[in-house]
């Protein structure tokens, strides 16, 4: 593999943009949430301050090697998805390293961070972490089913598993988006997105009032900082995945920002309206409506 300094530079720049946009979007969402609750809410720069604060904590504890590696896996998971995902479709600069693998790679790389985080939290030895993880894994198994159906439907529709190609196929106007050409896949995918982005009603993993905050119960200071950075990146990247799949991708950063914002907003919006599901409710829910939509989407293109 030839080393390409220019590509690396663009990728790192993209990562920086995504990180900051993620933090900002986080602030926006919390702000929106506050306004819904008739509060003023946090200042827009609060996520950065929290991040600085967490990186500046002076003392730390560790439960062992895997505890240490957990956040690293987690951030690698987030960054990895970013690396293998085309961000801006026009030109070659923002395609990152998506030429190394297709949609399947992205789908499976999601597990990298999850697994590592779960292991790290597991070594923390806190029972709440384990409960949170068991819930998270349980929920995740069924979230992925409609999403996969949607992706298979798109793969049949566009005859490719390459994300970049799927985006390119949607260019040429609003009506070319998968949202219109494949509405059922979009519906299934966007319902799955609710679970992937982890807001209410599917935030049982963290369930702050029940199992403090689940997996990261023992994580603090820099560990937490790393997790926060990952959260910011991951939210944008997940939104970008859905954007690429269903909403025509992005041809420039403005479009990117608007679309990811709206996709992320969708999950926040639902979260504002619906209360939290219990685990067996959320597990079965994904196997009902979204699954049926996904099946219809596949049948349409079979």
């Amino acid at each position, binding site marked *: 593999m030839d080393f390409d300094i220019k590509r690396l530079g663009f990728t790192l720049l993209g990562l920086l943009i995504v990180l900051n946009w993620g933090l900002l979007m986080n602030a926006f969402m919390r702000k929106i949430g506050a306004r819904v609750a008739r509060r003023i809410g946090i200042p827009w720069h609060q996520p950065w301050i929290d991040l600085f604060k967490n990186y500046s904590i002076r003392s730390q504890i560790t439960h062992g090697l895997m505890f240490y590696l957990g956040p690293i896996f987690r951030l690698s998971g987030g960054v990895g998805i970013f690396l293998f995902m085309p961000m801006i479709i026009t030109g070659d600069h923002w395609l990152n390293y998506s030429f190394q693998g297709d949609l399947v790679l992205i789908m499976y790389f999601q597990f*990298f961070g999850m697994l590592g985080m779960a292991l790290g939290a597991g070594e923390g030895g806190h029972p709440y972490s384990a409960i949170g993880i*068991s819930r998270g894994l*349980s929920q995740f198994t069924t979230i992925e089913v409609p999403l996969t159906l949607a992706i298979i439907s798109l793969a049949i529709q566009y005859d490719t598993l390459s994300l970049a190609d799927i985006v390119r196929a949607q260019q040429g106007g609003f009506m070319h988006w998968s949202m219109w050409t494949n509405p059922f896949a979009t519906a299934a995918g966007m319902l799955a997105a609710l679970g992937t982005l982890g807001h209410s009603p599917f935030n049982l993993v963290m369930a702050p009032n029940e199992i403090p905050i689940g997996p990261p119960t023992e994580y603090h200071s820099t560990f937490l900082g790393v997790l926060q950075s990952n959260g910011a990146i991951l939210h944008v990247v997940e939104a970008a995945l859905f954007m690429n799949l269903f909403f025509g991708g992005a041809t420039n950063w403005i479009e990117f920002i608007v679309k990811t914002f709206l996709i992320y907003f969708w999950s926040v919006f639902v979260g504002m309206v619906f209360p939290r599901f219990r685990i067996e409710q959320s597990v079965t829910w994904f196997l009902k409506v979204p699954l049926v939509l996904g099946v219809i989407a596949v049948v349409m293109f079979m």
Partner: protein
Amino acid sequence: MVNPIHIVSIALGVAFALGFLGKRDKLSLGLVLSTLAGMVAISAGWFIHFLNSSVEPLQIFTGGFKPPFAINLQMGLAEATFTLLINVAGFLGAIYLTKELLKTGKNMMLIFLVFILGLNVMVMTRDLFNLFVFSEIQSIALAGLIILDPNRKSIPSGFKYVIATGLISSFLLLGTVFAYYFSGTLNIDFISQASLQYVKGGAVAVFMVILAVILELKPFPANGWALDVYESAHPGIGALVSGIAGTTSLFVLYKLIPVAPFISDILITLGLVSFVASNLLGLSQTNPNRLLGYSSIGQLGLLSATIGMQQLLGDKFIFIALTILISHFFAKAGLFWLSGIINRDDIKDWAMLRKKPILLVLFGVFIFSLIGFPPLPSFFGKWSLIMELSAGNQYMLVTSILIGSFIEGIYLFRWLGYAIKLDFSDLPEFKLNISKFLPTLTWGILLIATGVVASAEMEGLSGLSYWPLIFIAFIYLIDELPIYIKNTLSIAGLAFYSWLTLPELYYTDMLRFIFMGIFLIGGILTLIAGYAYKGKRRGFYPVALIMYAGLAYIIQASTTLEFFFGWELMTAGSYFLIIRGKKSINHALSYMLFSIGGAYAILAGFGITFAETQSMLIASLSQLSNMVPLVFILLAIGFMTKTASLGLHIWLPGAHAEAESDVSPMVSAILLKAGVFGLLLLMIAMGNNPQIATIAYYLGWLGALTALVGNMAAAFQEDAKRLLAYSSIAQLGYILFALAMMSHLGWLTAMYYSINHFLYKAILFLTIGAVVLKVGTHSMYKMGGLIKNMPLAFIAVLIGIIALSGVPPLSGFGGKWLFYNAVIDKHWYFQGIIVFFSGIVAFLYLYKLIYSIFLGQLKDNLRHVTDISLWFAIPIYILIIGIMIISAKPEWLLQPLGKMISQWYPNGALAWNGGLATSTYGYWNGNGVMITIGIMFTTILIWLIVLSRKAQKVKQFNIVYAAEAPQRPETTHQSYNMYAGYNKALGWIVAPKITEFWNMMSDWILSLAHFTRLIYNGNGQRYLIYILGYFVIIYFLVF
């Protein structure tokens, strides 16, 4: 050459002379034994005589007249063989009974001699009335022998025996005289020339004769009297009744068939009914002698059916009948003799055999001989029988023979399991009497020897090398040596065999190279772990090597017989491996039952193939044009019992979970691949047939459901090894699914999965096994926090689960990527979704596995546990290196695989550009991904190390816990019922419906067995009514 008449004369002479010896019992015994030895010598002389030259049979005319005016005896090859068998058995039987004969005195010896004499004449005579006379002599003598050991049981049963045989021989006599009346002769040859069946009364006469002989063979249900004799008489007598008397009656039947050829068809039915029903009744029997009685009757039924099939079997008849007969002859007598040595009334007490391990080996040989495992003679007999019957399109017969044999397998293996596994500490010590041991041992050796002889007679077995088996025998002989010597030798043996075969296969046959590599290299690696064990580990190496030899034979087989030979050998070896586990008794039994069932399905499939193509080559499968779906289904079911597809998976979890630590990887990572290989062979041969596509479609669904149910069930396990076992079921489900796609990518996925599954499942099972050895429990919730004590094990499991789950960058992802492309390519979306879903469910159990064992809270009693044994770590890390290489350079594996698969499915191959693989749909650069992720991961690692370098290391209870400190590790380790919510939501998927189905089946069969055997109510008169009823019913069936 001594005239065979002297067999009669010296026996009679000595019998009379005994009367003059007074009370000199020892002398009498010596005389009897030497007489018997003399009889052996005479018949042996004739046997050799006839064997070496194709001379005409010798006719002996008593009184100097030729028949029909006088009685004549005949001595041909058949007679010589049978008298030899009878006399040898009589000689050894007398030795066996030395003690008893001396106790009861010379009268009993006299009777014994007369008994053997009667049998001899029955074999040799060509005269019907003479036959009657000597069969009466034989029965009366036997009636005397029954009370060799007079007790409350044997006396009434002797009485029942006398009445029943009296009645039966009256029929014989009646038939004889009427036959004489209609034909004017008593000579069998002349009667058969007279074609009495065309004369109205004559037909009835010969019918009576034949039916009397059949009744002597104790057919179901007119056999209550015989069962009582088996149960109550001294086992030494039981051996004679079952082994010799039964054999003689069979020969008589064979001899008389020309007299009444019309009986053949009915004989087949009667024999098979007896075979199936007696074996069924054996199911609920616990008394060893009576059980042997049922088994005897079953075998005699099969043999009499075989005699009836003489026309169907043609040239092969003699071979088939002889091999099955000899197996029965040796095995049944041997088992009765063993029973005499043990002398217990419950088959559960046979665990006593383990006090003298050689007896256990003999027991195993006899049992395996009855079922028909290689290299014992009945294996070849049954094989040829099925082949020939199939060639004659007698599928009903094939089915009932296989069903009967299967049922026989159930109780015989249950019994063997009891002997191998049950606790024997409470049972009394016993002394192994040399006079009792010697005959039994001789029988065991003769059995194996005849097996070897029979194998030389078989067509389609020429490609088989016997060196591995000889090597295994050698390993068995040095069983007393310490473990490291045997282990080293075994590894050397496997390594040598790899060196012999692998390089050649690499250039000639990639498919076989890969599977041979998995079997042999896998074998070597798992054997390395054996160094961790201490002591002698008796019996482990021979059986492990038998399994590997079987696997190697499967790969090298070019004919179906060789394949089946290897298949059965592998089954036998793995059965013994599995049953070595502490609580494995029932799991090993169910493994064996599924294996036998599967093997019979394979046998039937091969039989049908042979019927059409008249060829035993495996390649002939592809030439099949009729009944292709049936053959495919039969063979697929057979292979799927090994891959443990849904419905046939019941045996797997228990068998794998309870097996020893280094056996689990052998049976999981390696053995299951035999089924995959079989399926591959099958699909390669038959894949082109359009009828297969539909079946493959359903197989695909089956694979998908197997994957889902297996993984789902694994998620709810609390036992680490059981969890891995269910995971194996699921992984084999993926492979089945991928194979069933019958496309380039599908097979590439399947092959890639097979290799990967071998690697990571071996790692996981070895590691977990090693951990279990250290912590002494399988239950995950009893472990926890072991990462600090066992870093090596943790890393191994971590790599194993990442590879299994398919998370990039490790090798598992390649499988997932291929899988997606294959699914979309094949348009199997919904099955694909199920498999995909199950793949994610895998995360549940994988996390549970690693978390519950290595993370969370360390338990008090495990605080001082050390890391896994180095001997386990070595193979584990070698396998890890394998995974790493495949992960970093997937093209090294996938390119040759793709090339290999292109010979069957040229379309849809991957395009390679350096490390970048491109399919119709997607692309993947395994190498690049590995590097990218590696760099990224390292960067972030360094970043966090810089930030958190001064973190304070804390201990296990330094966790935030609602302002309190946790109290006990047990109550702080969240592991038991970890996925309770998930279980609530989706647990219904793994409701044990299939297990319930099989349980219901087995309950039903057992209650049928129990209900049916109630006909034997112990009343002698009732038994007579059965005899009469049998007679009447068969009469109306025939005429």
